[in-house]
């Protein structure tokens, strides 16, 4: 799998969800991204990502519902005297917040293949030669991330048994300081190891230059077609915009932009081999 092909698909998904206000197309992109990822990674491995996406989306919905007191369909009201929360709570604000949540969720899932589907070296291989050293350094630091999480668990456990208890923000320094120091030491050791293996000694080469396979071309082609069709739909008014205020209406839909979104299901044909 070529990371450049994945990048083309991700960029198209993100372009569509950010360029339209219509929740129907955003939902279609979200569904396509979810189905594609499930085909490539499997729902079980996606569990953590999905929980994170749900939490972030829920926050976006709640934030708009609580802060935007616009719209005509009032669900309930809180007296204006209540600071920050006072005012009418409307169906329109809820729907508009839900559209924001859809946007965030679709964008995160569109970018998720870079962490869930591709190995760090596959991402680095796709970078231009001029960025190869930066890429190697990023790959190395990505490999340190799991050890930081493990270090946090170890430190917390060890300090608890020495009598540490969480008593206010200051007490956390006994956890944070060793975790940070351990991470810094880990980074220094890794840098030492990279130096000892000639990192930075001159222009780098690649053991396996990233070449596009037919399946990658299929993905790039489908993404380009989706991008083109949706852009034309936008320009010609087929992908009608939608706005929740002042009164909630159903979003209108057209087959052409919807087909563009369905083209984003192309990874289902390509990513099955990664499970």
């Amino acid at each position, binding site marked *: 799998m070529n990371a450049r092909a994945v990048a083309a698909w991700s960029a198209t998904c993100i372009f569509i969800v950010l360029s339209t206000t219509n929740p129907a197309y955003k939902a279609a992109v979200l569904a396509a991204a979810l189905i594609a990822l499930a085909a490539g990674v499997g729902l079980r491995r996606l569990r953590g990502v999905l929980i994170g996406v749900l939490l972030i989306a829920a926050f976006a919905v709640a934030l708009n519902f609580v802060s935007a007191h616009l719209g005509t369909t009032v669900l309930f009201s809180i007296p204006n005297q209540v600071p920050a929360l006072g005012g009418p709570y409307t169906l329109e604000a809820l729907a508009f917040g839900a559209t924001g949540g859809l946007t965030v969720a679709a964008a995160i899932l569109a970018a998720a293949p870079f962490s869930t589907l591709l190995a*760090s*070296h596959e991402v680095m291989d796709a970078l231009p030669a001029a960025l190869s050293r930066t890429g*190697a350094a990023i790959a190395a630091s990505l490999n340190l991330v799991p050890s930081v999480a493990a270090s946090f668990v170890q430190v917390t*456990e*060890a300090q608890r048994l020495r*009598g540490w208890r969480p008593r206010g923000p200051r007490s956390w320094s006994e956890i944070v300081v060793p975790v940070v120091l351990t991470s810094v030491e880990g980074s220094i050791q890794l840098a*030492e190891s990279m130096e000892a293996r000639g*990192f930075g000694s001159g222009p*780098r080469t*690649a053991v396996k230059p990233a070449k596009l396979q037919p399946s990658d071309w299929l993905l790039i082609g489908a993404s380009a077609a989706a991008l083109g069709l949706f852009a034309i739909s936008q320009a010609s008014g087929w992908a009608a915009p939608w706005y929740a205020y002042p009164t909630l209406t159903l979003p209108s839909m057209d087959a052409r932009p919807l087909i563009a979104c369905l083209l984003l299901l192309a990874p289902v044909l390509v990513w099955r081999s990664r499970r």
Partner: protein
Amino acid sequence: MAVATLSRLTYTYPGATQPALREVCLELEDGLTVVAGPSGGGKSTLLRVFNGLVPHFHGGRISGSASVVGRDVIATPTRHLARSVGFVFQDPELQTVYNVVDREVAFGLENIGLPQREMAERIDEALDAVGVEHLRGRTVRTLSGGERQRLALTSALAMRPRLVVLDEPTSQLDEEGAAMVLTSVLALIARGGHAVISEHRLDRLVKQAHGLVMVGGGRVESIDPKAWRRPQAPSRPPRRFALGAEAWSLRGASAGFDGSLVLDGVDLAGCAGEVVALSGPNGGGKTTLLRLLAGGLAPVAGTVERRPGRIAYLPQNPTALLHRPTVRDEVSLTLERTEEGGLPEAILDELGLASVALRNPRDLSSGERQRAALAAVLPGMPRVVLLDEPTRGMDVGARDALISLVARLRDQGAAIVLATHDVELRAALADRVVHVGQGKVVEAAPEAMRA
């Protein structure tokens, strides 16, 4: 011609007042050279001179001269020495850059700009030389510690260096993993390669070594490997009291992560004043069992019971504990928290740490850090003592001090559980040895304690 020649080399780390190496004069002959000596004596610093990490990576002041495989180390940056000198570090987890085996081996070759075809040849050659052809395509995080260290050796050999330097490569490995690495090193020597290795397990290596270098207090001395005598095994401290009542127990206890069980229905118990040693391979469940007993991990089934009182727990990674400005402060913190009274000096003396009591624990060598962590968890009167690989990186003297300390705690009535690969430590202390592996525990036969 010698592989390396050091002449009147003195090196001081940045900010240090005393040199880490003093007036070192050394000639490394072809073949295998073993570097030995007490923790904190300067072994790692000496090894880092051979590929220029000292002084180019670490900075500091250096004087004298150092020539390795015909190159002036002081004038040549490490990254340019990488083609001539390979290096394998102590920690198997902190030296991999990529997450697939073949790519990891290729990392150094990419750095020196080799053409693609030559890289493929060298990767095949190095994987074959270390005997890890079967690991090709594997994800690095799925490898055992021994496999990871062999991967690090493979990566070093792929550069076709004239000299390979290994810094305590087996200190974090189980017996099988350590044997894997040492066998690969000896095979390299048999094929005409040159290597320098620092190790605490000298018995296997010294017989094959062409040189033995003792390092201590920054001084370096070459001795004839044939003159080396295996230190006497630690004696077993006599028990002063009979075993007490049951102090901890696991009944049908299961524990694991991400839906897979590491321990499955374990039944085990220990008494006050008893030392139970856990043996078994890396990843077999020893640490999980200790964490269950410590209360850091809840069982998914079964029960864990402990008698009231303080639990002292030394985690596998001792740096998890250390965050105070001095070693003495680390001990004081535990004494204050436990309100058991006493002065830090008692345990610092007992573990031979008086001379480094006012130093930052993170500035110490790995063996000294291990002792500092032990001092931080073991002062006062803990009722249950859980030690995870307590002799990691320790020299013989430090291990003897640990044995005396554990025996004292045992005689004060503490229930002790230690997970260790160190057979001599088990023989000196264990009342029972329990093998932990594949989710189960099996009580070892008494003769296995001394095996």
